[in-house]
C-alpha cells in the first residue's frame, strides 16, 4: 500500500511525512496542518505520545503525567492527518525532491506485518533519543535497567522491576524516575547524581530565569523526593552491582569532578534493582540514512539544523532530541518550527513567534544541562578489565582497549562490539570512550543500515512488490560486514 501520492483531482497541497509521534513529531504535525499540508505521521509505538507522554488509558497513574492537556490538544487535531501507529520505519530515502519511507505495520516483531510505503515532498524526522547508561561491573545482572526503562515500565505498565531500588547517573531526569518508582510502589533507597556541587552550580545557577517553566517541574520532583524521604546525593554513583543471578546490592562511591571513584569512599548497600541513566543519546539512524549531516564529538553527536530546522539534506527537517537534548518543551518548539517550514511556511509568520522564543530559551537550557551533567571522562576508571561493555556480544573493556589502534570497523569485526542485535545502540558511546582513552580514533557507531528490526522473511515478501526487493538486496550487499542479519532478524 502506498499512501501520500497525489491522486488525480486532489489539490497540490504539500505532502509532509512526520516520523515520530513524541512531542516534536506531534507539534510538527499540528504546525504542518496549520500551514495547509497533507500530513502523514508514523510511530512504531502502539500509542502516540513518545517518551514524554508514554501512557496507557487504564494502567497509567495520572500523577505521572505532565502537560496532559497539551497532549490532548495536539492529538485532537490529528483527525485531519493520516496516522499510523505500530508502524516501524526500516528504510528511508530522499532523492529527486521526494522522500520515501518504508514501514511494517502491526504488533511489535510479529511475523507477517503489513507493508506501508509513504511518499512525501518533505519529511520531519523526530525520532527522539534513548537512555545513555554507562557500563558498570555487574550491570548485566537481571534487575539492572536504564532509568528510562524504570520510567516507561512505571508509566506504561504500572510495574516496578524491584522493591528496593537505587537510581544512579546524571541529570534532572533521575528525579521524575525516582518519583515514578515511589508512586508505583517501590522503595527508592537513594538517588545518586555523579556531578558535584561545583559543576551543578556552574550549570544551574547563572541566569536562573532561563529555567522558567522547567523550574516548576523540578521543584515538584524535589518535593516528591522529600515527601517520600528519598535521599539525593551528589558527587556519587553506583560503581559496581553485586549479585550472582540477580541484583543483591551495589557499591556506591564518591566521585571526583571527573567522575573517578575516590578510593576509600566505597560502601555497600543492599537492593534488588538499579536504574542507571547518564543522559540520553539521539536515535540518529533515520536522519543519517536520509543524508542529513551529523555534528559533534564523542560526548554527543546530533543532527545539524539551521534556523528553519532544515537539515543538510533537501526536504529533510529534524526536530526534538535528535538535534540536542533539551527536554519536551524544546522538542515541542522545534517540532512546531520544523512542521511549519516543511509545509512551506515562513519564519516571519506571526504563528512562529512563540515557538522561536521557546526554542531560543530551551537551547540555552540544553547547554546548561550539558555543562552541569555531561559525562566526564573519568567514569572509565570504575570499569574492571573484564567488565562487559557490549551487552549483546559479551565484549569486555580489555578486549576493546586491546584493539583500540585498529580502525573502528576492523575493531568491531575483531571484537564483535556493536555487531549484536542492538547494533551498538547500547554500547556505542562507551566503546568510543574506551577506544579514545586507549589512544585510538573512535568514530562511527551512528550509521545503522536497517533502521528498525524487520524480519528477513517480511523484507523478502515485500520484495514481490514495488522495488522493495532492490532495497533489501542493497542492504544485504552493502552491509554484510555490519552484521545486518542481527538487526533484521532479532535472533540470528
Amino acid at each position, binding site marked *: 500500500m502506498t499512501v501520500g501520492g497525489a491522486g488525480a483531482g486532489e489539490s497540490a497541497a504539500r505532502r509532509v511525512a512526520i516520523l515520530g509521534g513524541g512531542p516534536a513529531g506531534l507539534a510538527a504535525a499540528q504546525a504542518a496542518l496549520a500551514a495547509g499540508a497533507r500530513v502523514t505521521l508514523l510511530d512504531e509505538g502502539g500509542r502516540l505520545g513518545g517518551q514524554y507522554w508514554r501512557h496507557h488509558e487504564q494502567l497509567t497513574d495520572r500523577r505521572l503525567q505532565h502537560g496532559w492537556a497539551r497532549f490532548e490538544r495536539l492529538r485532537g487535531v490529528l483527525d485531519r492527518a493520516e496516522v499510523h501507529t505500530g508502524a516501524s520505519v526500516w528504510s528511508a530515502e530522499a532523492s529527486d525532491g521526494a522522500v520515501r519511507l518504508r514501514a511494517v505495520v502491526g504488533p*511489535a516483531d510479529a511475523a507477517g506485518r503489513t507493508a506501508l510505503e509513504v511518499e512525501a515532498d518533505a519529511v520531519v524526522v523526530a525520532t527522539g533519543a534513548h537512555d545513555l547508561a554507562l557500563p558498570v561491573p555487574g550491570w548485566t545482572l537481571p534487575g539492572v535497567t536504564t532509568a528510562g526503562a524504570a520510567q516507561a515500565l512505571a508509566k506504561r505498565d504500572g*510495574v516496578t*522491576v524491584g522493591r528496593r531500588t537505587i537510581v544512579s547517573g546524571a541529570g534532572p531526569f533521575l528525579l521524575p524516575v525516582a518519583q515514578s518508582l515511589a508512586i508505583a510502589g517501590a522503595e527508592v533507597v537513594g538517588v545518586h547524581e555523579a556531578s558535584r556541587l561545583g559543576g551543578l552550580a556552574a550549570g544551574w545557577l547563572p541566569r536562573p530565569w532561563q529555567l522558567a517553566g522547567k523550574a516548576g517541574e523540578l521543584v515538584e520532583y524535589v518535593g516528591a523526593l522529600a515527601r517520600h524521604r528519598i535521599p539525593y546525593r551528589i558527587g556519587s554513583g553506583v560503581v559496581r552491582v553485586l549479585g550472582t*543471578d540477580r541484583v543483591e546490592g551495589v557499591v556506591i562511591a564518591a566521585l571526583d569532578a571527573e567522575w573517578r571513584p575516590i578510593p576509600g569512599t566505597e560502601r555497600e548497600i543492599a537492593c534488588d534493582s538499579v536504574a542507571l541513566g547518564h543522559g540520553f543519546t539521539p536515535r540518529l539512524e533515520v536522519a543519517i540514512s536520509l543524508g542529513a549531516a551529523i555534528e559533534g564529538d564523542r560526548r554527543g553527536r546530533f543532527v545539524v539544523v539551521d534556523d528553519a530546522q532544515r537539515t543538510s539534506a533537501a526536504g529533510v527537517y529534524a526536530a526534538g532530541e535528535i538535534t540536542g537534548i533539551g527536554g519536551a518543551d524544546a522538542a515541542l518548539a522545534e517540532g512546531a518550527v520544523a512542521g511549519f517550514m516543511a509545509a512551506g511556511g515562513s519564519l516571519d509568520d506571526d504563528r512562529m513567534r512563540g515557538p522561536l522564543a521557546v526554542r531560543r530559551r530551551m537551547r540555552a537550557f540544553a547547554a546548561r544541562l550539558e555543562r552541569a551533567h555531561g559525562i566526564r571522562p573519568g567514569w572509565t576508571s570504575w570499569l574492571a578489565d573484564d567488565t562487559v561493555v557490549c*551487552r*549483546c556480544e559479551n565484549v569486555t573493556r580489555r578486549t576493546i582497549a586491546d584493539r583500540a589502534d585498529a580502525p573502528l570497523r576492523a575493531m568491531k569485526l575483531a571484537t564483535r562490539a556493536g555487531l549484536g542485535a*542492538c547494533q551498538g545502540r547500547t554500547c556505542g558511546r562507551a566503546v568510543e570512550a574506551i577506544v579514545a582513552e586507549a589512544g585510538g580514533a573512535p568514530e562511527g557507531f551512528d550509521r545503522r543500515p536497517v533502521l528498525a528490526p524487520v524480519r528477513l522473511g517480511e523484507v523478502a515478501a515485500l520484495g514481490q512488490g514495488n522495488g522493495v526487493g532492490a532495497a533489501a538486496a542493497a542492504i544485504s550487499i552493502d552491509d554484510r560486514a555490519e552484521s545486518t542479519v542481527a538487526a533484521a532478524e*532479532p*535472533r540470528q
Partner: protein
Amino acid sequence: MIRITVDAEPLEGRDGQTIAGVLIGAGRTAWRTAHTGDRGVFCGIGVCHDCLVTVNGVEGVRACQREAVDGDRVEREVRA
C-alpha cells in the same frame, strides 16, 4: 485480567500490559539466557533487544514492546 503461559506456566497480567509488564508484575525479572547469564528488561523502549522472547512460536519478539494478548504462549530464548 489476561492469562498467558511462560514456558508452559500460567501467569496473570492486567489487560493492556506488555509481555514484560506481565512478567515483572508476576515478580520475574529474567526470562532470556545470554552468554553472561539471565537477562530481562534493560532499555524498556525497544532499542537494546535484551528482553527477547518467543511468542506463539515466533522468535525474537521484544517483550517490552509487545502488548500481551490473552492466551499468548511465551517461551524463553537461549543464546549460547
